[in-house]
């Protein structure tokens, strides 16, 4: 099944593409079998890392998987070319992933179903290579300072809002899809993998039936996306905001936000009811976006009250006491089950982050100040004891002299 993928990998490994890209190695597939790595089952592209001799930088080359066939292949190909269009629009935006080479084609020889050798054109495009993973901040959150993590979160928010400013919603945000990048001496966070991103100004390219299954990472997807409404354009920006809220929580906690949300029986029941209703609407053939949205709003209004969102500050958290309430409020504003209640105002989010950072900084300063005062007091006490001892010694000497 993955014969074509293997052929593509074999054709590129250790070869030079366009007389420009060398040292090519596949990154998201197993080189020998062509199967996706790391349980990346939803991948429809083959990504290579290469060295660009023109810019003397590493680049990422993304190929449309030649093994993709059947009814969904055309649709996936349209998504693939949409990703290129989106990247074209983001050229020159410093918080966005930069395109190096637009959609191009490369021919490879593959076997068709009758075992004839045929030439197949494989579409690909080239992007800058970013490898500043932020994963460690999440899976090892206790090793990092709270202020550093808040600075990172601020950067993540700015990166995501940079897309939103261009009317683009990512829809698959997770910490794997956010990379640290150095731009003019600034350390920024840049969203990558725009395969499921959507240009909010363009016409829809597929029917709702193409999205019957939830899209994006389940651990960072809001309830409406979990219930199969990820395709509704009006919800896509809110889905990104929800993911940011989840990641803020995960920066300070061991358990994923979604794992903790599922512990709430209120959420479990709300989720079950919503899931069922959406499935009912689909089975009734009611897939009109406006009507689906109305039904959703009614339903979530009815069932959402019982959900108790997880607190950012429970047992095992690394949130400093000083910022607990602020960060709790921010997480809840970003992850509300009612999408319209999610905080979309960039300035408001940044203000809340800044306020939490200040509170932590003040707490740290206070702790330092206390430590200094304590050390000072201890030194003074020590001196007093030494003086007393010296005085005693002098008195004893005087007495003995006398």
């Amino acid at each position: 099944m993955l014969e074509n993928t293997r052929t593509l990998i074999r054709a590129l490994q250790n070869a030079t593409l366009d007389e420009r890209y060398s040292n090519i190695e596949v990154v998201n597939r197993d080189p020998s079998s062509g199967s996706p790595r790391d349980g990346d089952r939803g991948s429809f592209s083959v990504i290579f890392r290469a060295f660009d001799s023109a810019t003397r930088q590493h680049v990422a080359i993304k190929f449309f998987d030649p093994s993709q066939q059947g009814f969904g292949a055309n649709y996936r190909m349209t998504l693939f070319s949409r990703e290129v269009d989106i990247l074209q629009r983001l050229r020159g935006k410093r918080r966005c992933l930069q395109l190096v080479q637009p959609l191009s084609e490369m021919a490879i020889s593959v076997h068709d179903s009758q075992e004839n050798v045929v030439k197949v054109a494989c579409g690909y495009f080239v992007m800058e290579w970013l490898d500043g993973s932020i994963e460690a901040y999440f899976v090892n959150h206790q090793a990092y300072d709270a202020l550093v993590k808040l600075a990172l979160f601020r950067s993540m928010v700015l990166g995501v809002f940079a897309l939103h400013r261009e009317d683009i919603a990512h829809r698959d945000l997770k910490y794997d899809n956010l990379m640290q990048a150095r731009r003019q001496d600034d350390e920024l966070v840049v969203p990558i993998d725009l395969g499921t991103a959507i240009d909010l100004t363009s016409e829809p390219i597929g029917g709702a039936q193409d999205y019957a299954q939830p899209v994006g990472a389940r651990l960072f997807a809001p309830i409406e996306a979990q219930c199969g409404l990820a395709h509704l354009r009006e919800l896509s920006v809110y889905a990104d905001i929800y993911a940011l809220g989840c990641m803020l929580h995960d920066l300070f906690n061991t358990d994923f936000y979604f794992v903790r949300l599922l512990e709430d029986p209120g959420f479990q029941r709300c989720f079950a009811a919503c899931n069922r209703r959406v499935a009912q609407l689909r089975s009734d053939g009611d897939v009109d976006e406006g009507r689906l949205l109305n039904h959703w709003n009614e339903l979530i209004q009815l069932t959402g009250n019982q959900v108790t969102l997880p607190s950012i500050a429970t047992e095992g958290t690394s949130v400093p006491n000083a910022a607990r309430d602020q960060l709790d409020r921010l997480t809840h504003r970003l992850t509300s089950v009612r999408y319209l209640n999610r905080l979309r105002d960039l300035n408001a989010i940044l203000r809340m982050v800044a306020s939490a950072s200040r509170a932590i900084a003040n707490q740290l300063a206070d702790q330092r100040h206390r430590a200094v005062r304590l050390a000072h007091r201890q030194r003074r006490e020590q001196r007093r004891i030494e003086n007393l001892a010296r005085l005693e010694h002098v008195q004893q000497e005087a007495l003995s002299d006398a």
Partner: protein
Amino acid sequence: MLSTSSNVTREQMAVCDEDAKVEVGVETYATSEVALPPVPKLLQGERPVAKPQSVHVSYADESMQDALSPELDRLLSKRNEFGSSPTYLAQASSLAVLCGRLDDAHRLAEDARKEAPEDDDVAYRYARVAFYRGDREAAATVWRQLADGGDLRSSLRMVELCVLDGDLEQADTWLRRAMELDGLDWRVHMLAGTLALIAGRGAKSIHHHRLALAERPRSVRLHYTLALAHALTGHVANALRAIRVAVGLDPFWNVTLVAWADLCREDGAPRGVAAASRALARFLELYPDDKAVIERHARLLYEQGNFRAARRVLSEARRRLQDAAIVNNLGILAVRSNNRRLAVQEFNHARQIADSQHDHEMVEVATANLVRALFQSDAVDRAAATSSEYLSAVTEQSLLTADPGYHIADVLVRSYVRQHRLSDAISLAQRWMKREAHPELRTSLAEALVCYFSLVDVQPEQAHEFALVAHEVQSSLPTRGARWNGTLNNLVFTLIELERLDEAESLAGQLRAGPGDAGAVVYATRGLLAIRRGRVEKGKALYERGISLAVSKDIKSRMRQKLSWELGTYWADRGILGKARRLLERASVPIKGDDWPMRDIQRRASELLSQL
């Protein structure tokens, strides 16, 4: 006149009264539930019984597990990079639990513990995975150690474990310790409330629930258990208030809806019943196969008198579910619409379904309804045969003591009477009267014997003796309803027949007369007393009032015939033969409908007529 209408017990819709489940854990990822008596029984004063419970671990559903498994695999693929981080291992372990991969979760939790042996959070998580895997002993060891060191979560877990083991005393000790650690924590009060509820201490439970709700006002679980606590203390209005909040927060939780429907039924306020009915209908739009809610919805509609809507709900459910209770309830609706043939069909069908599903309880309910429907549609032979067959197949004692089984015994005796197999009926009734039968059955049997000794084999002393038994049984019950009035009426009647008129008069003052057959016969009894006292006109007027108030044509005819007999004998004793003859002629003529209770009077009237 003898009261026989109260003998006819009204059919009740079959509703599965499942136990009320209350959660005893704090994290509901895996639910530890304890069963309490259902709401109607709590209201009747039944107390919970603490017993060891099993843990019900409810992970994410299969589709969620499938969706999350790749996320876990992706996380596990980073093990080389982050494998020494206890946070990473604990995170992966939690995700593995959610994916239902408990062995992976256990291994990861164990590794995390090795990396950070001093970390309490990691130890707590390790114990939690052990608990999910069913290893309560390992979990208890770690949690006990942590709780001794002052960890609140672990103390609460110890409470949970003790409740699951049925050791409420030890649970209380751990709870007190948790209270000392943090007396303001809502989880402590939630568990304290639940524990008090399980121990049957309603007021204490309410107190703790209110404290917990101050911090968690949106918790449906808290509002629900608060409602159960109110039900335990017998305050239906307060319970209703709490359950309404719970349903408002979550209109799609069948547990709260069922409790609301039961409480509304108990309360009986029409507005509340209508609101509950609407909520149940909305729930059924989303979950049309929920049997407990279907049954409650149909019952509420039925009791509101909205038979058509009830039938619609049940017919819709019957299309989806092969369920004996639903078919049985359709039979009851057929009885209400006087379509007894259809009712018999439905009850028979319900019996077959229940039998094929080995649901013995439902077989008994359907059989009780079937024999009652057969009896009331004059298919007395079939009623007798069916009830006799059923009685021979089950343990008689269990049938005599439980509802609805005793109805079958009741119908059998009354069918024998109607078939004129009086000796069979009397021997059965006398045999069962000596045993610890259900009070309602004892009353029925005693009343049947009163009828027999008053109307068939007239022995006033014997009749009075059984009337006394029936009335004593009814007087011993906590509530006095129409049946108590009926037995008192029969007692007065037998006293009149024994010519103990002073005693009869003193008891007659307690009788409640009114519209309907049961109330109308009281007028007849008072009329009879007046005639025996010689106040003929007053007696006649009372009889006339009773006849006008009676609903059943049979009862009206019997009253008229009895009045004719009484007046006929009265005038005959005074030598006014023309008047007496006219009245006795009326008393001797067989009346339309079911006239077996009047046959003795008809016979005696004929004899007297021939002597005059």
